[in-house]
């Protein structure tokens, strides 16, 4: 029988942040940094199923809420890639993670614990994530009969929070996303979807979807990778 999921928390910036944990009694405990913003919601179920697969293989996994996301009591508008990087570092230490796995934009904030082995799937540039959110905002405004420009939104984001595709982002977040690329860290294992891992980019889809075969492929790969490097 699969281990039951449990919620633990880590302390960051005066708040208790949630981490969904499975199989934490194992010697290997992989901290999973999900894709950012809407992309996280679209593949959360697939990720949790991959965590169950890992637990079945005797590997622990923890999926953290980044401050301002999911059940977090913190405000998203107060966050930036820098605060998220610090939060990941705090979570890795407090929850005693032995490995770090980041998906998509998660790879923009995974480099605060360089002593741990890192794994990345389909790392994304911050500018691409930002551009999609800006385009979504402009398309929504257009349907409502309003004309909004990218330049106007970027300008507004210098002075205060802007709402982009349902996310209220502060000036620091917008500025950091515009230039962020996954940092070079070592050691890091980068996986390409469709080549190393069978599956489809659920994070790009308009609606959340499930993919049991992809969850199994992820669990297999994370199990093999984590066994090959410490823990």
């Amino acid at each position, binding site marked *: 029988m699969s281990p039951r999921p449990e919620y633990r928390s880590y302390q960051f910036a005066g708040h208790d942040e949630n981490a969904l944990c499975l199989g934490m009694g194992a010697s290997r405990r992989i901290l999973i940094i999900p894709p950012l913003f809407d992309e996280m919601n679209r593949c959360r179920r697939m990720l949790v199923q991959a965590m169950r697969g890992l637990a079945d293989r005797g590997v622990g996994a923890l999926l953290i809420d980044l401050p301002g996301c999911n059940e977090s009591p913190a405000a998203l508008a107060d966050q930036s890639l820098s605060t998220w990087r610090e939060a990941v570092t705090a979570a890795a230490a407090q929850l005693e993670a032995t490995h770090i796995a980041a998906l998509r934009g998660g790879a923009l904030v995974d480099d605060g614990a360089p002593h741990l082995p890192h794994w990345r799937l389909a790392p994304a540039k911050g500018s691409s994530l930002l551009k999609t959110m800006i*385009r979504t905002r402009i*398309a929504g405004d257009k349907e409502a009969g309003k004309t909004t420009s990218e330049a106007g939104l970027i300008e507004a984001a210098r002075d205060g929070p802007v709402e982009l595709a349902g996310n209220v982002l502060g000036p620091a977040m917008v500025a950091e996303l515009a230039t962020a690329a996954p940092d070079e860290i070592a050691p890091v294992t980068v996986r390409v979807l469709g080549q190393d891992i069978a599956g*489809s980019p659920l994070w790009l889809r308009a609606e959340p979807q499930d993919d049991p075969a992809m969850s199994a492929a992820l669990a297999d790969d994370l199990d093999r990778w984590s066994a090959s490097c410490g823990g």
Partner: protein
Amino acid sequence: MPFVPDSVETTIRELLVDVLGVAPATVAAMTDDTPLFGALPELDSMAVAGLLTEMEDRLEIMIDDDDIDGDLFESFGSLVAFAKAKVRE
């Protein structure tokens, strides 16, 4: 590595599968005349945002949103023609 225009069409087909979740067989059967916007329920104005960004990333092009009008997504052929023109720029 610059993109050769011949591979642009393949990339667009992959995008429709990956971003919109359209069945691969449906996408494989598309011809230049196959209508997209209004005919594919998966393609709405919100999905277009993600599609454009993925097109930029995979084809290594920049798309100025002012260039975009309703005709771009009218048919599979019009989308491929737009992408090929951008790759040549």
